[in-house]
């Protein structure tokens, strides 16, 4: 008997990156810092996902773990899988990782002032990345580096100049050119605009957006600025004390905010149309990463905390298709 074949056609967006249960700790002389505590994250091909959180939440650690460029003493990856294009890169050898870094996964760092080698010419630093991953002549690498410079809006006559001869915004463009030079499939942008003026910020973001569309790159954008997230991100993951407490599309997070922490973040933003006399920050500080509390890590600061929040850590609940929250208020058993 042939039943009616129901052919379901949905857009299967490929996942370019899947992080499963990542745990990273830093071992110092004084104590052990629990930086990342069981993070699960998926990045779809071609999407920009924002990783939002306060300083010290563990966002940079997550990004550096993907590329495996953590300082290994004192950092140590205690567990988890990172599946990139169907392969677990935690299992790869250093040699294999080097073929991936800069080539298939690239990173942009926060401080453009210190991200470039001060005694090497800017063009060379880009060409070096190109020449490393492509079997081409030096002249060809230089030519492509010039193209990259033009692509980020820097005249290629400046190829032979040194980093200190550029302004902050232009340095960041060089860093972006360097990262995108080999056309990576995944770009990790660690607070790329935090150190820049607001006007330059807008320019750089716009440039990143257009490049991303042109090259089809997936982006993990780390930031603590919700405004930037609103402008550029398709999905958002909210990070707190080494965990992802809320994840969903930008619409989910902005219009249907569920986790008390995320709600607190939005409430603490100054609003132009409000007449409130004082700002509303989230009370308290992030917990000491060397001494994380039992139970939910946001419990102490949460205005909606219940008794069970201090006892157990909540599980993840899917409050809407694709919208995940880690809180007892919405389920979490």
């Amino acid at each position, binding site marked *: 008997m042939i039943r009616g074949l129901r052919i379901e056609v949905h857009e299967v967006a490929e996942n370019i990156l899947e992080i499963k249960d990542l745990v990273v700790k830093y071992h*110092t*002389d004084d104590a052990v810092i629990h930086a990342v505590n069981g993070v699960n994250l998926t990045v779809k091909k071609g999407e920009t996902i924002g990783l939002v959180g306060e300083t010290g939440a563990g966002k940079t650690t997550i990004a550096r773990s993907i590329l495996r460029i953590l300082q290994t003493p*004192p950092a140590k990856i205690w567990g988890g899988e990172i599946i990139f294009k169907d392969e677990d890169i935690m299992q790869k050898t250093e040699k294999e990782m080097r073929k991936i870094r800069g080539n298939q996964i690239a990173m942009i760092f926060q401080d453009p002032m210190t991200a470039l080698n001060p005694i090497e010419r800017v063009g060379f630093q880009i060409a070096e990345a190109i020449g490393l991953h492509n079997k081409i002549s030096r002249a060809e690498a230089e030519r492509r580096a010039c193209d990259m410079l033009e692509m980020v809006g820097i005249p290629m006559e400046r190829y032979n100049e040194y980093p200190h001869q550029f302004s902050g915004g232009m340095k960041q463009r060089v860093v972006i050119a360097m990262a995108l030079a080999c056309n990576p499939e995944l770009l990790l942008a660690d607070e790329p605009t935090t150190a820049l003026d607001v006007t330059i910020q807008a320019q750089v973001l716009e440039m990143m957006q257009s490049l991303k569309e042109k090259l089809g790159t997936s982006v993990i954008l780390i930031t603590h600025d919700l405004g930037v997230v609103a402008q550029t991100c398709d999905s958002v993951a909210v990070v707190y004390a080494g965990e992802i407490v809320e994840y969903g599309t930008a619409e989910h997070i902005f219009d249907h905010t569920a986790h008390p922490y995320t709600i607190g973040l939005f409430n603490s933003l100054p609003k132009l149309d409000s007449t409130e006399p004082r700002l509303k920050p989230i009370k308290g*500080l992030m917990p*000491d990463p060397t*001494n*994380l*509390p039992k139970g939910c890590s946001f419990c*102490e600061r949460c205005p909606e905390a219940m008794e069970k929040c201090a006892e157990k850590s909540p599980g993840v609940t899917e409050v809407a298709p694709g919208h995940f929250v880690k809180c007892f208020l919405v389920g979490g058993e």
Partner: protein
Amino acid sequence: MSKPAKKKSGLSETWRQLKKNKAAVVSLFIIIAVALVAIFAPFLAPYPYDEQNTKRALEPPSEDYLLGTDRLGRDILSRLIYGTRQSLQMGVVATVIAAVVGVIIGAVAGYYGGWVDNLLMRLLDIYQSIPMFLLCVTLAAVLGPSLRNAVIAIGISMVPGFARLMRASILTVREMEYVEAAKSINASNARIIYKHIIPNAIAPTIVSLTMSIGGSVMAGAGLSFIGLGVQPPMAEWGAMISDARNYMRAHGTLALYPGICIMITVLAFNLLGDGLRDALDPRLKN
């Protein structure tokens, strides 16, 4: 329930960090031991340092003379013990003199700036154009060989280092934002100097001072070695090495003991200085 981190005071925090560095702690004990030997030398030494017994010259270690005797029959052990006085004096006194003078000059230059700074820096330039050891030797020769003059010579030759260090520290701290912040809440100049500038400028000076003591001890030994420092019959390690030089063929180990003493003392000060530097500068910690 996580607690906020406890606030630690500067001095005790430094001590706590220093304690972690075993080498530095050992060095501290060694230095204290050397100092005690110097203070209690007459009680510790079996013989006076200048008692000669030519009949028993150049003897190897024996029951009477635990480390043997030198060319005039003097007990080497006793001379080593008394030698701590000379070396510590040359080391510590010379360095402290240099540090005090240098810090004052550097502080004046750094704080007032302008033509005062310019003038002092030009003078320091002239000063520093003469290689340090050459200056030391010249001064020692010119003033006349003696312990006191060696101390002065070494001290004078070390002044520019401290002056520039102090000046640089003050210039850096002056420009730091927390000084601006203090000014903006109307803190008085004196308070700024006392609470911000001095503590931050002092740390590198202390490190430099400790390391320089090692250098001074060596310079002093060097001066005595060529005859321009401590004069006979005073016991000094460098002079003892010089004495032993002519007898090295037959008595190879004669020069060994004083050299080892110098090395241990200088090493201790260097290790302590290293440890202090690591403990005082949080940025250098991993």
